[in-house]
């Protein structure tokens, strides 16, 4: 149903994700590792390729080196095509001046020529901040059935959390009647997932109109979508059912990793019909030692586990030495947990060597501590270990 030149996907991957603190110190949020072997962006890229999207533009801006290296020409997601495929779209110069992407809508606005050159009929706007599996074909089908101008993917969130989201108020046909951004008293619990499908000619008209408005922040949620609604466009909400998690903060990032250890979370990585793809590191299998205990955990290639690992996600090439105990933690690639050290609810960054016989995070049972070489920071207050 999706013809490769019919739908053009635009993936917003330029954000810093400053609430992820140390994790995004050196890399863009979409490039942050997740789930033992992936990076956050892999979920959206894999959804796109599994949905038969043939054209995808990736809008990058913040510290893009690792992200660019990871994406390459997109061959890991089968996006190295003769026609179409994947393009990385950084901000660029026009004549003597150029601009950074100043908002989500502005990023698309600056690439109007790119989308035009592909002869797009529909534009699918995606963000690389979420962990989920979605068949975008279902969204497109709904959009076409409703003969809509814009369709927004939504998910039902718990009522008590609705105040954190952009809530859509709809009529009985799911036609959007009002946007309610982070409402104090929500009247609905359908939250926008930041996934939109537009008819390109209409979107183009409003992007140009928005660009002329100096007071606009050039953001889809704040500016462009409300303007389109005010001017009477047909906008529908499509309801997604399934696992979806925003990994914008350290806590939600940690929780999303832990969700992978729960068989009932709704996110199944082992489904061969909807594989999540990533760039492979060519490592040998993992070795589990003679006295080790591994329970309720995900362990990746190249790891050596001689100690005890419970309820944790361990990335490629990491080592847990004998007598070390890792509980409820996330260990990034090539980190080493030395003998006799006990970790609780920790995130250990790449290549960090955690010294032997330490007890880390015991005193902060609810908090998550971030460990990098030489220092430990406890969630928000920084505490330095000698």
């Amino acid at each position, binding site marked *: 149903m999706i013809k490769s030149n019919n739908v053009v996907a635009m993936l917003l991957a330029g954000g810093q994700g400053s609430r992820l603190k140390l994790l995004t110190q050196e890399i863009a949020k979409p490039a942050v590792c997740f789930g033992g072997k992936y990076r956050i962006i892999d979920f959206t890229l894999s959804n796109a390729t599994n949905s038969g999207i043939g054209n995808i533009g990736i809008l990058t801006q913040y510290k893009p080196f690792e992200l660019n290296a990871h994406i390459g020409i997109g061959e890991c997601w089968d996006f190295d095509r003769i026609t179409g495929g994947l393009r990385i779209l950084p901000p660029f110069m026009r004549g003597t001046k150029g601009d950074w992407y100043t908002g989500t809508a502005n990023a698309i606005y600056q690439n109007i020529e790119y989308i035009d050159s592909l002869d797009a009929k529909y534009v699918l706007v995606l963000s690389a901040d979420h962990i989920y599996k979605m068949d975008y074909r279902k969204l497109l089908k709904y959009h076409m059935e409703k003969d809509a101008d814009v369709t927004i993917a939504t998910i039902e969130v718990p009522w008590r959390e609705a105040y954190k989201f952009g809530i859509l108020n709809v009529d009985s046909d799911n036609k959007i009647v009002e946007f309610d951004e982070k409402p104090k008293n929500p009247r609905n619990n359908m939250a926008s997932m930041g996934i939109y499908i537009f008819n390109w000619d209409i979107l183009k008209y409003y992007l140009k109109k928005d660009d002329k408005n100096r007071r606009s922040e050039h953001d889809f949620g704040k500016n462009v979508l409300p303007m389109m609604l005010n001017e009477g466009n047909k906008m529908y909400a499509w309801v997604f059912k399934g696992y979806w998690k925003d990994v914008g903060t350290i806590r939600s990032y940690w929780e999303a990793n832990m969700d992978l250890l729960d068989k009932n979370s709704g996110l199944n990585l*082992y489904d061969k019909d909807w594989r999540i793809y990533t760039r492979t590191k060519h490592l*040998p299998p993992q070795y589990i030692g003679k006295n080790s205990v591994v329970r309720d955990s995900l362990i990746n290639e190249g790891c050596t586990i001689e100690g005890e690992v419970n309820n944790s996600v361990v990335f490629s090439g990491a080592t847990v030495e004998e007598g070390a105990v890792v509980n409820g933690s996330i260990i990034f690639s090539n980190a080493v947990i030395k003998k006799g050290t006990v970790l609780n609810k920790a995130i250990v960054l790449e290549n960090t060597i955690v010294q032997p016989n330490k007890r880390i995070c015991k005193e902060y049972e609810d908090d998550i501590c971030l460990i990098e070489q030489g220092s430990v920071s406890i969630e928000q207050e920084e505490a330095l270990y000698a």
Partner: protein
Amino acid sequence: MLEECLGVISFEDIGNEFGVLCRNKPVYMLPFAGRYRLVDFTLSNMINHGLHTIAVFTGSKIRSILNHLGDGKPWDLNRKTRGLSIFPPLFDDVKRRSCDIYQYHTTEEFFVGSKAKYVFIANPNILSKVNLTEVFEYFLDTGADITVVYKKQNNGKDEYINADTLIIDDSGRFVNIGINLGSKPVFNLFMHMILIKKEVFLEIIRAGMETGENIYFKQAVANYKNMYNINSYEFKGHVEYIRGIKSYYNANMNLLNKEIFNELFLEGGTVLTRSEDEPSTFYDTKSRVRNSLIANGCIIEGRVENSILFREVKIGKDAEVKNSILMQGAVIKENAVLINTILEKYVTVEEGINIIGIEGNPYTV
């Protein structure tokens, strides 16, 4: 420097000793170490030492190797110039001659057409991390026409019966290639690695074909030894020669030894293979895994000890796996027991079934 060298992967067909494991595939395509094929080691070692033009002589069972190699991308061999060449036998060869001299003769254009000055031939059934750069330097420094690689073994009485042994004089000059019949414990295992000047290689092929005296290249080398300067290079690292089910099983189990594992995987370059994008392996609450090598994509709920698990293996609750090799996609259901067994790809062991092989002589399913 090694860019001036052609890599040739070629083997002697000894497939019959493997029973069901090699019914449809050559020995060098046997799965190994949880996610590799034997051939990956020879291929990766060549790549890691800078050989960029590689020819694979496939032998007659070509389906699996074609599928595995593809355009050579996992080994960075999908190049516009150089890269990978695959030479299956001609259709008529199956009835005629499948020996290596004949194969090289019928692909002579490949060798003549290349600008390379040297040829390096290796047998993919022999796994090692020979430092090819060092071999090449030795070859050049000694001004040899041919350098052959061997390993001094001290278990010739029990293992390596019928393996080729390299006979050399005190100065390391090539004397002959014989067969180890187990009369002495110490012998020089010929590792089936030959580094040779291309013009000498072509001369030997032509002479071998014209005289009809030789069907194997190694025989020809021995026959023409007086015409060339042939010396030897001693390799001192770990070698696995996969010659039958027993050596195949032992080679896998040896990987549970940290030193051997490190030598084969962590030192002297990465071993490359085709990736299958499995997620990490999940260990359930009641799993108990000890001293085992586990590939990605497995789901383990039961007990595993001293075993090698390939990708996507599932071990059910209270199942027990010991001293076994489980190939890709094998499923062990609840309460099943598997000891001293090699399980082929996608085999399912039903609930409560026990399969127990004899120690040191694994049962193959």
